[in-house]
């Protein structure tokens, strides 16, 4: 059995993604959250988050269930708008523009900020039609063959499906479906890809493929990933935000951001006791 310290040590020495060593202020920020809280009706799911997201970085949100990390992620592309009673306080600025501003069209936001979900939600269409869906609804005319090939190649799926493009997407395995969802997402040419526990329903081999893919995609996209898997956060991300669920004075649970920093630092020398407890497995 390894002690928690050994686990931390292992994570920091061998599993970290080696890419970003730049301090955040040297990078362009894509998203900048200022004092953001998200409510469902009267219930405040997550409170007062201030956080930047760096361009071409992978930012991981980790924390126990119910800490509001998925809720926060869904405020990046206004997916919370679809939930009756949900509202966002504070400022979610995308390249300097508040996406909750009065003139902002949520559809335009979602065209730039794509999303991959926990369960692979391929459409009941052919593989080809799944990838071509986004460009079609966004009014891009013409022949999609090249685009479909390019996106499937970038999602590391082309070689497996190139002869079956007309087949139903439901014929694919779970891991292939999730890569198809990623291909579908990048076909809209987004700037940011949000991933909400993208490997939660996948086996370890499929998970490894998705993780490799994330590293590749980060060259061109900014990625924010919510994960329950700390090793995954350590392996793939440049920066990590640790959230927790706390009881306030009235005994009501709500999510809080505890610590945010370069993944290497956060895992090797967390500055907050709660982070240390969580990543060493003493809690959560």
């Amino acid at each position: 059995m390894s002690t928690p310290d050994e686990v931390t040590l292992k994570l920091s020495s061998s599993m970290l993604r080696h890419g970003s060593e730049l301090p955040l202020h040297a990078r362009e920020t894509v998203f900048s959250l200022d004092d953001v809280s998200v409510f469902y009706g009267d219930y405040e799911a997550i409170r007062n988050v201030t956080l930047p997201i760096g361009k071409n970085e992978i930012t991981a949100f980790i924390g126990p269930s119910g800490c509001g990390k998925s809720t926060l992620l869904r405020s990046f592309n206004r997916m919370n708008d679809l939930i009756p009673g949900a509202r966002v306080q504070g400022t979610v600025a995308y390249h300097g523009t508040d996406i909750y501003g009065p003139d902002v069209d949520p559809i335009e936001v979602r065209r730039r900020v794509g999303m991959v979900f926990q369960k692979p939600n391929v459409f009941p269409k052919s593989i080809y039609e799944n990838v071509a869906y986004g460009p079609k609804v966004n009014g891009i005319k013409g022949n999609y063959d090249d685009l479909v090939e390019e996106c499937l190649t970038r999602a590391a799926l082309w070689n497996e499906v190139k002869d079956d493009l007309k087949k139903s997407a439901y014929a694919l395995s779970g891991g292939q479906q999730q890569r198809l969802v990623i291909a579908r997402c990048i076909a809209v040419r987004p700037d940011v890809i949000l991933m909400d526990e993208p490997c939660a329903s996948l086996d370890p081999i499929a998970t490894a493929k998705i993780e490799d893919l994330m590293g590749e995609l980060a060259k061109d996209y900014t990625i924010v990933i919510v994960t329950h898997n700390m090793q995954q956060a350590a392996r793939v991300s440049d920066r990590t935000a640790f959230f927790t669920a706390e009881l306030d004075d009235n005994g009501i649970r709500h999510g809080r951001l505890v610590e945010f920093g370069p993944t290497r630092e956060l895992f090797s020398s967390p500055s907050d006791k709660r982070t240390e407890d969580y990543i060493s497995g003493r809690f959560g």
Partner: protein
Amino acid sequence: MSTINPDATALTAAANSLRRSKPHYGERVIRGLLLLAAVVSVLTTFGIVISLLIPSIEFFTEIPIGDFLFGTTWTPLFMNGEFGVLPLVSGTLVITGIAIIVAIPLGLGSAIYLSEYASLRVRKVLKPTLEVLAGIPTVVFGFFALEFLTQLVLVKIFPGIEVFNALSAGIIMGIMIIPTIASLSEDAMAAVPSGLRDGAYALGSTKRQTAMKVVIPAALSGIVAAFVLGISRAIGETMIVTIAAGLQPQLTLNPLQGMQTMTSYIAAAGSGDLATGSIEYKSIFAVGLLLFILTFIMNVFSIRLVRRFRQVYQ
């Protein structure tokens, strides 16, 4: 290591404890009752087919089947009456066609509104209200078509319209089946996993695109099933057509004229004073058999259709 062979007495004890302590008579009774329930409807179907077949066969020994199927004059109650069923078939098809034209856009439209656009509160009020429409007796719909629709509305639009006409019957029949189509289609669309909607919205789809390009294709087999059920009800519907479309068998496509359908002929002739065993009496069963076969073909065809969509999409 201790022995892995338990001693003999322990084995017997274990075997005894696994033995049934009392016979499960209740289980058998329930099983029998449930089987009976299932068999009743199957037997009824067989009974109907046989009771239709026997008089029909007698009918076709007197009237050649070709004359029946392709004859264009239906005058069974005249002296030397003719038994060409086409006027009844065309009446049924015209009125059902009008009903489909009314019911599919309105039914599917309300389903899309209820499932994709309406707020929870609106849906809670609207859906039960719509379903109340399904509970109105068809005889009431029939008089509504005749007294209100024809005499107050249609007369003003089409001055030459007959008092008994196919148009009013078709429109009201369409309204009658809207709840069936709307309610079942809405169920099918509500059953589409919300993850698919999220996926569509996350790609920058509008509400309309999400509904039309993702939700409806995903719910298509259920929606087609709803259409089929609605159309079957329309074909089999009797009271509305008997009251509002008149009882003159005419081979015409003009919806402003009166028409007789297969069902309204059966109802009218069946409630008259035809002598049992007469050729007119047997004609009721021949028309009934034809109606049964037409509906059956439609059902088989639509089940195939639904299966085909399922294969493509799942």
